[in-house]
C-alpha cells in the first residue's frame, strides 16, 4: 500500500535525480550520498588492502626482498590510516545515510547540504594523505598511532600534509555525526519512540555521540604536533620540557572510543540480520540498547590499557585493568542475545546471514583475546607483538568489515532492485572466511612466540606462520574483487527484488518498493509503523 502512495506522490511533487556527473557533485539526497560514501570506502578498502599485501609479501619469508624498511613503515602506517579513516568509518557513514532515514520514516537526513560537504571533503583529504607517498622523504612512517616524538621531531616533512588530512577527516566525521544525531532525534516518524528504533539506528546514535566527543581530541593532538613541528612549542618534546607520554594519553583518549566507533554500528547491522534469517524477533532488545550504551561509556575510561608498558604507576595499571575487564560484560550480553535470537528460530543461511554468523563467532574470538590482553601482567608479554595484531584484526576484519559486507548483501536488493547472485555471494563468503582465518589465526602464535609488530624482517622461528599468514592475506585480498563483481552484476541485472526482499525482514525500509524510490517518506502519512513491525 505504501508503495502505491509513494509512486503517486512521486509523480505529483518530485523529480528524480539530475543527470550526469553533477548529480553526484551537488547531490543532497541521502541515498546518493550513501552510495558515494560506500563506493569511496570500497576504493579505500582496495587501496589499504594493496598496502597490506605489500606488507604481507615482504613478510612472506625472512630477509628483505621487496621493499626497504623505510617504505615498509610507510606501508604499515598508511594501511592503518586508510583502513580506519578511509574504509571502515566512511562505509558505516554510507550505511547510515542510506538506512537511517528509511528506517525511521524520514524523507532525508536533517541537514542535507552539510551531508554533501561531509562526503566531498573526504576525497580531498585522502588524496592529500595518499600523495605524501610520492613526496620527498616519503609518507607518514610512524604507525597509525603516530606516537610522538617519532611523528614530530623525527617525522618526514610530509607529516604536515598528514596533519591537515586528519583535520579534514575529523571535520567530515563531526559534520556527519551531527547530521545523524539531528536526524534521529528530530525526524522520526510520528509514533516511533526511541525504544522502538531499529538497533542499527540506536547504535549509530551512540556512535555519533562518540564521534562528536572524540574527534576534537584527535584534532587537538594533531594540532599540538603541528605546533611542535612548525612553531617551536614542546608539547611532546622532552628536551623542551614536554611529555611524550602525554601524546599517548591524548591519542588513546580519542583512540579507544574510536575503536568502538568502528564496531558499534556493526552490532546494529548484525542485530538486524540475525532476526530476519532466524525469523524470530531480536532477543533482549532493551538489554542490547543498554549494553551498547555501557560499552560506549566504558570506552572513555579504559584508554590506559594501550599503555600498560609505558610505566604508569601501579594504581593506574590496576584501575585500567579492572575497567577494561568490565567491557567483557556488556559485550558478552550482546553475543548471548544474538545466540538467543538464533535459538529456536527457523534459520536459513543466505549470504548476509553467513557473514553475520561469522561476525558473531570471529568477533567473539577477537573479544576473548581482548580479555586476555586486559590482564595487565600478561599484557607485558603481549604488548606490541603480533598477538595484538591478531586481536585487533579479528575484531576489525571479520568484525567491522564482515558486518559491512553482510549489510551490503542484506540491503543491496533494496538499493538496486535486483537480487544479487547467491551462489557467487556464498563463494565470496567462504573465500573471505577462510582467507581471514588463515591470515590472522597464525598471528596469535607468532605473537606469543615473541614476534614484535611493525618489523619488516623477522627471526627464523617465525618463518612458517608468517608464510601461511601471507598466503591467507592474498586469498582474502583477491576474494574482494569477486565482491566487486557481485555488486556490479547486481546493479546491472538480477532477479527483481520484492519490497520485503527477505521473508523474515521487518522494518520501515522494507515497506518501500525495491529499488527504493529516490524520495521516500516525504510525508508522515506514508509511514506505516504497523506494517513495519510485521
Amino acid at each position, binding site marked *: 500500500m505504501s508503495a502505491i502512495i509513494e509512486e503517486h506522490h512521486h509523480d505529483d511533487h518530485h523529480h528524480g535525480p539530475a543527470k550526469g556527473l553533477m548529480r553526484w557533485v551537488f547531490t543532497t539526497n541521502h541515498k546518493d550520498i550513501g552510495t558515494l560514501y560506500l563506493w569511496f570506502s570500497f576504493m579505500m578498502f582496495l587501496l589499504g588492502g594493496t598496502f597490506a599485501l605489500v606488507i604481507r609479501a615482504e613478510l612472506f*619469508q*625472512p*630477509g*628483505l*626482498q621487496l621493499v626497504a624498511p623505510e617504505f615498509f613503515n610507510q606501508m604499515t602506517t598508511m594501511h592503518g590510516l586508510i583502513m580506519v579513516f578511509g574504509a571502515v568509518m566512511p562505509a558505516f557513514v554510507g550505511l547510515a545515510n542510506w538506512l537511517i532515514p528509511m528506517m525511521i520514516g524520514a524523507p532525508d537526513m536533517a541537514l542535507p547540504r552539510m551531508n554533501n560537504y561531509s562526503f566531498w571533503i573526504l576525497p580531498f583529504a585522502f588524496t592529500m594523505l595518499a600523495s605524501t607517498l610520492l613526496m620527498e622523504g616519503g609518507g607518514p612512517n*610512524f*604507525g597509525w598511532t603516530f*606516537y610522538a*616524538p617519532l611523528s614530530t*621531531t623525527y617525522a618526514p616533512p610530509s607529516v604536515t600534509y598528514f596533519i591537515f588530512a586528519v583535520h579534514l577527516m575529523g571535520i567530515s566525521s563531526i559534520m556527519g555525526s551531527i547530521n545523524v544525531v539531528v536526524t534521529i532525534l528530530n525526524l522520526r516518524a510520528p509514533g516511533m519512540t526511541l525504544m522502538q528504533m531499529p538497533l542499527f539506528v540506536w547504535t549509530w546514535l551512540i556512535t555519533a555521540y562518540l564521534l562528536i566527543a572524540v574527534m576534537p581530541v584527535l584534532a587537538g593532538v594533531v594540532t599540538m604536533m603541528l605546533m611542535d613541528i612548525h612553531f617551536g612549542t614542546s608539547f611532546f618534546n*622532552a628536551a623542551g620540557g614536554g*611529555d*611524550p*607520554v602525554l601524546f599517548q594519553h591524548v591519542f588513546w583518549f580519542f583512540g579507544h572510543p574510536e575503536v568502538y566507533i568502528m564496531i558499534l554500528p556493526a552490532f546494529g547491522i548484525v542485530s538486524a540480520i540475525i532476526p530476519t534469517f532466524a*525469523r*524470530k*524477533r*531480536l532477543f*533482549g532488545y532493551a538489554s542490547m540498547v543498554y549494553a551498547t550504551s555501557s560499552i560506549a561509556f566504558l570506552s572513555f575510561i579504559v584508554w590506559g590499557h594501550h599503555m600498560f*608498558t609505558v*610505566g604508569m604507576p*601501579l594504581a593506574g*595499571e*590496576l584501575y585500567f585493568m579492572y575497567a577494561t*575487564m568490565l567491557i*567483557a*560484560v556488556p559485550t558478552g*550480553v550482546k*553475543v548471548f542475545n544474538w*545466540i*538467543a535470537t*538464533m535459538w529456536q528460530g*527457523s*534459520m536459513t*543461511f543466505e549470504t548476509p546471514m553467513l557473514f553475520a554468523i561469522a561476525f*558473531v563467532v570471529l568477533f*567473539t*574470538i577477537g573479544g*576473548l583475546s581482548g*580479555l586476555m590482553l586486559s*590482564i*595487565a*601482567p600478561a599484557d*607485558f*608479554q603481549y*604488548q*606490541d*607483538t603480533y598477538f595484538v595484531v591478531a586481536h585487533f584484526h579479528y575484531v576489525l576484519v571479520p568484525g567491522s568489515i564482515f558486518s559491512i559486507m553482510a549489510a551490503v548483501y542484506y540491503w543491496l536488493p533494496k538499493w538496486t532492485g535486483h537480487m544479487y547472485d547467491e551462489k557467487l555471494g556464498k563463494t565470496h563468503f567462504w573465500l573471505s572466511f577462510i582467507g581471514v582465518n588463515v591470515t590472522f589465526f597464525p598471528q596469535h602464535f607468532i605473537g*606469543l*612466540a*615473541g614476534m*614484535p609488530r*611493525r618489523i619488516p*624482517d*623477522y*627471526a*627464523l622461528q617465525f*618463518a*612458517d*606462520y608468517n608464510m601461511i599468514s601471507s598466503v591467507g592475506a592474498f586469498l582474502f585480498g583477491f576474494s574482494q574483487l569477486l565482491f566487486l563483481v557481485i555488486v556490479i552484476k547486481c546493479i546491472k541485472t538480477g532477479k527483481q527484488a520484492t519490497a520485503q526482499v527477505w521473508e523474515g525482514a521487518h522494518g520501515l525500509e522494507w515497506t518501500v518498493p525495491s529499488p527504493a524510490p529516490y524520495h521516500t517518506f516525504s510525508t508522515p502519512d506514508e509511514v506505516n509503523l504497523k506494517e513495519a513491525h510485521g
Partner: protein
Amino acid sequence: MEKAKQSRWLVALSLLLSSSMVYADWTVNMRQGVTAISREIYELHMLIFWVCVVIGVLVFGVMIISMLLHRKSVGAVSADFHDNTTVEILWTVIPVIILLAMAVPATTTLNKMYDPGEAAIDIEVRGLQWKWQYTYLNNDPTKEVKFVSSLLTPREEILNETRKREHYLLDVDNELVIPVNTRVRFLVTSGDTLHAWWVPDFAVKRDAIPGFIHQAWAEVEKTGIYRGQCAELCGKDHGFMPIVVRVVEQGEYETWLAGKQEEGRLVYETVGKEWTQDELMAKGEEVYLRVCAACHQANGQGLPPAFPSLVGQGLAVGPMAAHLDIVLNGKAGTSMQSFKGQLNAAEIAAVVIYERNAWGNNMGDSIQPREVNKMMSTGQ
C-alpha cells in the same frame, strides 16, 4: 642453461625450507621464562587462555547446535520468545564472577612486578636509533662500565645474499652480562624516540621514553643466553635492534666486569697517545661501518633527505669544528644524535677523520683524540 636455472631454484627452495627447520627454539606459545615473575605471568596467561577456551566452546557449541537444529530446511518453526529476565541476569552475573576471579591473581602478580625491592645491580638501558646503550651504574665513575650493543647480523644475510645463521637478527656485538640469582634493576630511558626493551624470558618489557626513566627488574634463575627485540616502533631500523642478555655465575660476572673496567682504563690511555693518520683512518672506518653506515650508508651517500650524503658536500668537506660539533652534540630535530655519550674521544676523532678523507673527500686534515677529549670534557 635450463639446468643451471633449475638448480638455482632448487637451492633457493631448499634454503627457504631449511631456514625455518633448523631452528630448534620453534614455539607457538608464550615462553615460561627464567624468572619467578615470568612463570607467574605464564600461569596467568594459561589460566585466562583456558577460561577463554571454555567460554568459546560453550558459546560456539550452543550456536552450532542451534544452527543444526533450528534451521528451516529441517522444518524448524520459530518460537516467539524475545525476553527472559532470569537468563539475562545470569549471563550478566556469571561473567562478572569470572572476571573477579581473574582479577585476584592478576593483581597479586602486578603487585610483585611493581616492587623491585633491593637490587644488587643497577643498569641504565638507553634506547638509541637503532641500538641499545648499557651503563652499569657505579658510585665511582672510573668503574662505571658503558657500552653500546648493536645488531651483529651482516647485511648480506638480511639481503638474502648468504645463508642466514641460527640467531638471524637476534645476535649483537656486545651482550649485556648479568649474574644469575641476583636482583638486577633496569633503568630504561631513551636518547631519541620511543623504544621498548623487551626480553620475553624475563617478562620484562619497558617502553624507553626520552625524558623519563622507568624501572623494571629481574632475578634470573638460570644461566644462559636470552634474546629479545625492541618492541616499540622507533623508525627505519626498528626491526634491527635486538637485545641479548648473557646470564652467568657470579664469579664469571665479576671477571667480565673487571675486564670491562680494564677496557675503560685502556681507552683512557688510548685517548692520550699520539695517533698516526693511518691508525685514525683504520679505526675510523671500523667505527663508521658500525655506527654511521645504518643511516649515511657504507658509501657515504646517505638516504636523502632524511639522511644526507657526506660525499663531496656538507659538513664532511666544510670546517672541521662544525663537523665535530654535529658528531659530538647531534642535530636537534633530526635523527642525527649526540655521540659524545656513546663513543670515546679516539673513536670520534677517528670517524671524523675517516669521513673527511674517505670516498674521495680527501680533506687531508687531522686531529688527535686528546684534542677531541678536551672538547668533550670542556663541553665545547
